[in-house]
């Protein structure tokens, strides 16, 4: 088979998202071996690459596993100043020990194809948030 000639990826900081979260909704300890919690998004801001948007919905579903790692599945609805809305969604981990302390996740976007934010759906992203911080730093995978 041919040699690997595809580009080595990199990360380029693209957006900062400041999240205002609502009160947690606790489902409790599940038979599948972890604790389920939901954090609704009440608001926030999304800034970068010329976009100045606000959070208009979404939430983070958490599953605290028995090994101490919390799996996070997130959906964020973002509206820009002109009224176009995108949906960011992804998953990752919240860890409090080991190599990294905080939240890291991968994100993809859905956007109206005729709108100014359609390009967001053509790339993949990763995001990082320090523990107890409200800002999620989002980088484009280049």
């Amino acid at each position, binding site marked *: 088979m041919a040699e*690997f000639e*595809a580009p080595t*990826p990199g990360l380029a900081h693209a957006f900062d998202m400041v999240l205002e979260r609502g009160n947690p909704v606790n489902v409790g300890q599940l038979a599948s071996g972890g604790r389920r919690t939901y954090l609704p998004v009440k608001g926030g801001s999304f800034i970068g690459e010329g976009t100045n948007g606000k959070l208009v919905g979404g939430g983070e579903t958490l599953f605290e596993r028995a*090994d101490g790692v919390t799996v996070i599945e997130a959906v964020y609805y973002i509206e820009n100043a002109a009224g176009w809305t995108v949906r960011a969604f992804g998953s990752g981990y919240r*860890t409090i020990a080991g*190599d990294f302390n905080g939240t890291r996740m991968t994100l993809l976007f859905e956007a109206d194809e005729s709108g100014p934010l359609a390009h967001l759906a053509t790339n*993949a992203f*990763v995001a990082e948030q320090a523990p107890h911080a409200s800002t999620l730093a989002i980088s484009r995978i280049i």
Partner: protein
Amino acid sequence: MKLEFALELRISLGPRMHIEVAEGYTRGAVLIEDGTFSGPGISGKVVRSSGGDFPLVRPDGNGRFESQYLLETDDGAFILKRSTGVRHAPPEVVRKLLAREEVDPQSYYMRMTPRFEAPAGPYDWLNRSIFVGVGQRNPDGSVFRYWKIV
């Protein structure tokens, strides 16, 4: 965030099947025939018939892929690999990719975010790390390289 090389997968693909889910939108199904993987501290083979790649292709040929299959390490551990990703390329490049012709790997954006379920033990770092991947489609199969976010 930095990237640290984690592993490379080389897989050969079976016949491609198509499901036209809406006019111009196709769900592909490509089953994994064979494969190997290796990286620092980890190596093994892809488990035959354990899954495949199921891309959703839009009318312009770009789209998203979703794959799922099993890896077996050389010391006998099974690891479930799932991945979602994005492919974006000019129309002529897409046409060649779909026809399985030789394409310059620099001419298209193909990135994925694999995630793993590994047993407790030497590979459980896969269960708490996120990864960035790059894919290269060759006429006889695919090569993926994954980097861990550190």
